[in-house]
């Protein structure tokens, strides 16, 4: 049970940290170019919406019988986690470019400087919506992980704590250094989140389908170890394949 709690906090902390690093880049770009008021009102509004999502769906899920919950949430986490893992492997192997916060910051500031100013509700609307959408969209993945992981584990507060600590840490660092957090090892963090979501998704979905795991909860570290070995082997295989290829464009930079 203690290991479950550690992995729960770690998964929500890492997912939240990595998504907030990306959101911070957008908020900084808005703040520097359009002013801090629309940027911060956008952040505040998005945080309220995300908190409402967690407050509504988190407790609601606990009313679903645990076997059905584990099956549904297990499948969702597994499919969602495999997306993270797949993209992290493709990035690590060189098929998808690594997320570059400095480049994203330059892109966002250039776009924000040229956008027209429209005042609505006393706010620069472009700055507000950019900041709001940035935090909301990045935060939605965190809210999804917090709600599904937290309710299935029966410990929503712990899941929220992991995510909240990361938000405070990233926001605090952003306020202190006042520039994008480009040195954060984003892909390694995404790799870890993908592994944890896929591990719990595999465990819960199979359990929900009627499987009795040979070692009970002890199967979780075994699944995690298996997935780590498999993912690293696939990364190494793809990296070698990539090095043998002539220079070709990357697939894209898609989310997660």
């Amino acid at each position, binding site marked *: 049970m203690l290991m479950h709690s550690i992995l729960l906090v770690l998964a929500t902390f890492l997912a939240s940290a990595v998504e907030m690093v990306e959101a911070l880049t957008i908020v900084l770009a808005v703040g520097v170019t359009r002013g801090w008021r629309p940027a911060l009102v956008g952040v505040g509004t998005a945080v309220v919406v995300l908190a409402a999502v967690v407050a509504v769906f988190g407790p609601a899920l606990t009313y679903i019988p645990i076997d059905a919950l584990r*099956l549904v949430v297990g*499948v*969702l986490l*597994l*499919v*969602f986690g*495999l*997306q993270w*893992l*797949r993209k992290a*492997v*493709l990035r690590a*192997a060189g*098929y998808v470019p690594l997320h570059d916060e400095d480049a994203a910051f330059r892109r966002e500031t250039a776009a924000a400087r040229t956008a027209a100013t429209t005042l609505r509700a006393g706010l620069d609307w472009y700055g507000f919506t950019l900041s709001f959408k940035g935090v909301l969209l990045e935060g*939605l*993945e965190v809210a*999804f992980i917090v709600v599904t992981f937290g309710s299935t584990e029966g410990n929503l507060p712990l899941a929220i704590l992991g995510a909240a600590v990361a938000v405070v840490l990233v926001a605090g660092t952003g306020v202190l250094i006042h520039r994008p957090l480009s040195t954060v090892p984003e892909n390694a963090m995404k790799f870890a989140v993908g592994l944890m979501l*896929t591990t719990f998704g*595999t465990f819960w*979905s*199979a359990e929900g*389908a*009627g*499987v*009795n*795991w*040979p070692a009970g909860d002890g*199967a979780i570290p075994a*699944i995690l170890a*298996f*997935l780590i070995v*498999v*993912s690293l082997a*696939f990364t190494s295989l*793809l990296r070698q*394949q*990539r090095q043998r*290829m002539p220079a*070709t*464009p*990357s*697939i894209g930079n*898609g989310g*997660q």
Partner: protein
Amino acid sequence: MAGAVIGFFRFWYEFIVGDDWTVAAGVIVALAVTYLLAHRAVPAWWIMPLAVGTVLLSSLRRAARHAR
């Protein structure tokens, strides 16, 4: 109205399933097989980890092939 409904479902499809639907399809098929075996008292715990590894490898190989 129809556009909003389509947009809503498209958002959630892209959010959960992403750009390779075969991953989700593979997971569902593996889970169905697991369910059938588990409810016939056949040990089925090994199916999901094996399926996850296979689905991941096949999706990665497809993505790598597209990059060529």
